């Protein structure tokens, strides 16, 4: 079946199976910034924005995304660059596998919550697991990014 998406601002048509999930469709079409971590709705590495909201692409049937806007890190180069700079400044990077999913969640957090508390920040990103950093440096990096005025 054919599915039409607006991927990073461009209209795209994909030929997919009815049981195909968006993660598979994106990666099969060379959008490999979207990572396959657990493939079980848990780790958050596969996060993309669907109409601006963070969703797990491993858990969204591609057919359900018909006509919707899908955004990956490639679609937000400037803002993702600011997030990357904050992560670099706080040494919040190690293997980098979870970074793209986390960056999109952090971007959505900034859009959705004004002046979030520490607890609200933690709750917002709880679904993005990192097996390297221990979260403290990432938490500092997120606060740095949210606190920067541009």
């Amino acid at each position, binding site marked *: 079946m054919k599915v039409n998406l607006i991927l990073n601002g461009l209209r795209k048509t994909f030929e997919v199976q009815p049981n195909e999930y968006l993660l598979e469709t994106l990666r099969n079409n060379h959008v490999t910034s979207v990572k396959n971590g657990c493939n079980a709705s848990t780790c958050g590495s596969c996060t993309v924005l669907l109409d601006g909201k963070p969703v*797990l692409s491993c858990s969204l049937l591609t057919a359900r995304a018909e006509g919707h806007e899908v955004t990956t890190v490639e679609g937000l180069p400037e803002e993702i660059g600011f997030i990357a700079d904050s992560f670099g400044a706080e040494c919040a990077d190690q293997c980098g596998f979870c970074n793209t999913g986390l960056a999109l969640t952090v971007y959505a957090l900034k859009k959705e919550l004004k002046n979030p508390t520490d607890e609200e920040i933690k709750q917002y990103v709880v*679904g993005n697991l990192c097996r390297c950093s221990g979260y403290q440096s990432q938490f500092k990096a997120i606060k740095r990014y949210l606190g920067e005025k541009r």
Partner: protein
Amino acid sequence: MEIKAYHKAASLNDAFELLKSHPDNAILGGGIWLKFSKKSINTLIDFSGLGLNQIIEKTDLFEIGAMVTLRDFEKHPGIRTLGKGFLSEATGKIMGIGFRNLATVGGSIIGGFPFSDFLTPLLTTDAELVFYPKKEISIQEYVEMKEKPVGILTHIRIRKNVNIGFFKKVCTTALDFAVLNVAVAITGHKFMIAVGARPGTAALATIAMNYINHANHPDGAAISETARIVMDTLKFGTDNVASEEYRKKLAQVYVARGLKEVIAHEG
């Protein structure tokens, strides 16, 4: 999981006629757990385009479309006030944001998942499920039904008579399934107690509720006795997460704590 065809429904009638036409046709909710199903689906019916993603506040109830996501439910200003916010807070503890932006209220009910942190607190409200074609069933009745109704869940109506509620999910980390979950509420001036992940699907502790609702004074002794009745009358079990004995003890402790909290904060 095999899906032979995918159909975007043009109307509820279209969806229902297609659902009836083949025993292996199915309705798509959030679709999150579908991938773990061993079922072969003939036609998967998507009714997400039918405007059932709205929460409408009426004088005495909230009418929630079956396709409302858990995140939209949790964030809704009216739902945040219901039962002093316990339904919203309980929903906000389910997995991460990326999960809750996909999972739907309807899918969480129809799925009947034993680990559900949505169903347990909902059972302590006077919620009513609205199906197409016309059928309305209370959430309590629905959970107990062995043969579920053939139809499409379109709305959930939650009455505003939930004064206060308490919810506890017992788990090791935020993204774990509950070892046990407990909800206690005062709804329509009555105590309601539900326990889920026992590891069976959430159930009301009706004998214990009857006891505390007929107690002269819901004091410390009555609360302890109610918690003991929950432990003794609900069915608990052992799986690879926890033993039956451990779950019973957890239920006893958190039901007592829940009752104390709702009594103290009812206001």
